[in-house]
């Protein structure tokens, strides 16, 4: 008996507006509300709402036999609240069926796990809190941004109290091994590792609607047969993909929704297959081996590495400049600044700067608000320049500056007090000499 673990990723970044260098120090609003709202509405109408409706129906129909998992970033939740509250409601309805697991990740869909444990932990915790607030349960399984994983990260995640973590079943990591088993982390074997079956996942996510693909058209029966015909000892098939696959990357007219519906029905009907959530997989199965990943991997591109975000000099500069602000950020408690800080870290900004795909940038061009990676870089750096100026003003570097700030605060406080007292004094004065009131106001003018 094999089990299928379906997991969908939901994320939308807060895209920046065209932020020119002459805005630095003058204008502190960075976001392109129009684009963000229209993309959210478009994706909600084409994907989130119809797909959620379909899933809800299937979950109710197959009572306990059909299960899925989601991870929804903090960015996406914030945008649901702002632009598409009905989407958030529909996710809550899914959560109430009890057959849907919500996974943990970083709040900002950030790459912070590569930089700083403390900040990583903060972001994961705030995301967990958000999931609990909306969907009623604290995540037990973790998926890092873009399925980025390494032995060290796995250990960090285990330390945060997660039982299992999802990542890519990258060929160069597995070699001859199959992704269709449960593995565990090399440093801390208590952390289970679920590996994506990229062949079967990408058949749906990337190839489904491609009519030049030799297997096109892909029917649910054919697909389920592929899974049935896998080696009988294999235990778990991890199908991980962007939720936007349904209706957005693969448009409705490719038949993707019917495929999903029939796929669920076929598996439920079958004697040899079942669905499980990641938590169930981690509990039910015994890890067959450790998986050793000394260098970070991800689910992106052919290389399955980090080069889509940190591959060129621009990306590295932007990334390093961003996290060079960390020491100050740790002393910052201005809510507005912290909000911008979260939005700035979103991995998408770095993705837009990727130069790997000058020739065929189809995946990279998706929802990309910039014409070229250079524009993306310049825009990001302009925003970052303004942000660091604000941060410097809010959190000065050395003790002397701190002293000055304290004194300034004191002076401000005193001045406020003086004003209050003066006002009180004037009040009493005017009360006493009502006749003088006119002359007073005239001199003021």
């Amino acid at each position: 008996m094999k089990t299928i673990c379906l997991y969908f990723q939901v994320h939308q970044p807060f895209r920046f507006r065209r932020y020119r260098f002459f805005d630095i120090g003058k204008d502190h609003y960075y976001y392109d509300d129009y684009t963000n709202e229209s993309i959210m509405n478009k994706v909600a109408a084409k994907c989130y709402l119809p797909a959620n409706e379909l899933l809800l129906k299937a979950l109710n129909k197959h009572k306990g036999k059909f299960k899925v998992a989601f991870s929804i970033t903090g960015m996406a939740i914030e945008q649901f609240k702002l632009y598409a509250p009905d989407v958030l409601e529909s996710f809550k309805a899914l959560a109430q069926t009890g057959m849907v697991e919500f996974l943990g990740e970083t709040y900002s869909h950030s790459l912070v796990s590569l930089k700083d444990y403390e900040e990583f932990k903060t972001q994961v915790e705030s995301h967990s809190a958000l999931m609990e607030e909306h969907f009623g349960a604290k995540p037990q399984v973790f998926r890092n941004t873009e399925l980025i994983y390494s032995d060290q990260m796995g250990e960090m995640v285990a330390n945060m109290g997660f039982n299992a973590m999802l990542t890519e079943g990258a060929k160069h990591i597995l070699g001859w091994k199959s992704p269709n088993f449960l593995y565990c982390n090399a440093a801390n074997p208590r952390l289970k590792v679920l590996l994506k079956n990229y062949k079967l996942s990408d058949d749906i996510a990337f190839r489904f609607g491609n009519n030049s693909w030799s297997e096109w058209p892909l029917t649910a029966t054919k697909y389920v047969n592929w899974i049935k015909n896998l080696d009988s000892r294999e235990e778990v098939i991890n199908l991980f993909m962007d939720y936007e696959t349904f209706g957005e990357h693969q448009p409705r007219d490719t038949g993707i929704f019917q495929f999903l519906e029939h796929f669920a029905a076929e598996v439920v009907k079958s004697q040899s297959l079942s669905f499980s959530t990641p938590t169930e997989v981690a509990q039910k199965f015994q890890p067959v081996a450790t998986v050793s990943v000394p260098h970070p991997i991800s689910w992106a591109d052919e290389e399955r590495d980090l080069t889509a975000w940190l591959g060129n000099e621009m990306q590295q500069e932007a990334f390093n400049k961003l996290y060079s602000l960390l020491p100050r950020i740790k002393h910052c408690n201005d809510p507005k600044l912290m909000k911008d800080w979260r939005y700035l870290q979103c991995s998408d900004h770095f993705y837009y700067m990727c130069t790997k795909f000058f020739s065929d940038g189809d995946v990279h061009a998706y929802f990309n608000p910039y014409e070229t990676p250079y524009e993306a870089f310049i825009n990001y750096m302009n925003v970052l320049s303004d942000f660091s100026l604000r941060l410097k003003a809010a959190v000065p570097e050395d003790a002397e500056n701190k002293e000055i700030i304290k004194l300034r605060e004191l002076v401000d406080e005193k001045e406020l007090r003086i004003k209050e007292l003066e006002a009180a004094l004037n009040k009493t004065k005017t009360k006493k000499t009502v006749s003088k009131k006119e002359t007073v106001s005239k001199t003021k003018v």
Partner: protein
Amino acid sequence: MRVLMFGWEFPPHISGGLGTACYGLTRGLSHIPGLQVLFVVPKAYGDEDQSSIRLIGANQIPVVHRQLELKHFSKTLDYIEVESKLVPYVDPEEFWRLTRLEVAGSLKYLNTNAEGKVDFSGKYGADLMREIHDYALVANVIAQDYSFDVIHAHDWLAYPAGIAAKEATGKPLVVHVHATDFDRSGGSVNPTVFEIEKKGMNAADKVITVSNLTRRIVIEKYGIPEDKVVTVYNAVEPVEGHVKEGIKKGVDEKVVTFLGRITMQKGPEYFIEAAHRVLQKMDNVRFVMAGSGDMMEKMIRRAAQLKIMDRFHFTGFLKGDEVFNMLSISDLYVMPSVSEPFGISPLEAMQSNVPVLISHQSGVAEILTFAIKTNFWDVDAMADAIYGVLNYPGMAKMFVSHGKKEVDSLKWENSALHVKRVYDSVLKNPS
């Protein structure tokens, strides 16, 4: 296969992009086995090697035939000079330089007006038409004296010669459009030039354009059928050996350079406006406008008006090593051309490890990836890009590490292969 080519300029006399391109292409073609080029140029100078045989045509036009052995060529090149007073185009500054130096007055140069195009209203106008006519006559003679399979003519002044050769022999004609009068004039086209250009394109069996930008102009403005027009991009001569050590900057400041004719076509005013915006945010940067041209005075006035002259420098026309020195102290090269059929100069900047910012309205933008591109009129975007390159070193670093490689992959040998394919196509189905 033998090609009769009506080209322009040859070393040592190279005055601009057209000469460079003709030379480069001919060199590329010489690498193709079985392909020979019979190169005809109007002789404009007179200090060339005279040791070769001298031919006098029936029409009393002296023609010089020599065999050149050039180090870049895999074999010798048949090279024919026609004693004509035509020069491909003269930059205004070049023109003044040349006329100043001219002593004997035996050679006349084309009178070019403000934008580098030929002014027909003056007394030279009649001369020019005669020159073109004479050149065509010689072409006719040459065509009868030599054997060849294809005729290839570069830019409008050579089209009549190409047509004449075609009429004399019935061999297929390819015309090569390096620029149209729409690029040179910014829209106010000279009807005589337009007429010659259109005639040449119509008479041609195939038209080669240097970019898709130019290809569209040829199709849309000259009404040439789409399937007759083929784009073959220019390339650039690789820099020999390692780059020479350039001069060092005197101050620790950034330098942004505009290098070219200061004419409407090159968009100098957009460079000034962008500089003005950048200077409001940065003070450790200097802008240099190198070159001369009819808009220079206007540009100086504009820069003065904007009160940026302390940071904005006009160098006048630069030649030879001065260009190289200028590039070697530059942190960014800007070419905001309004209409540039190709534009070889950014490639030369990239060879010198200088990041480049080019306008979308230049043909070279179609093939470069490691270059920033903006619209020429989008001064804000241009200023933003300049600021970005100067302040965020990641981008310049990337351009330097990949740009040179990209430029070095643009080889004349490849362009020549494309041209060869065009020859093959006209030989297969003669019209």
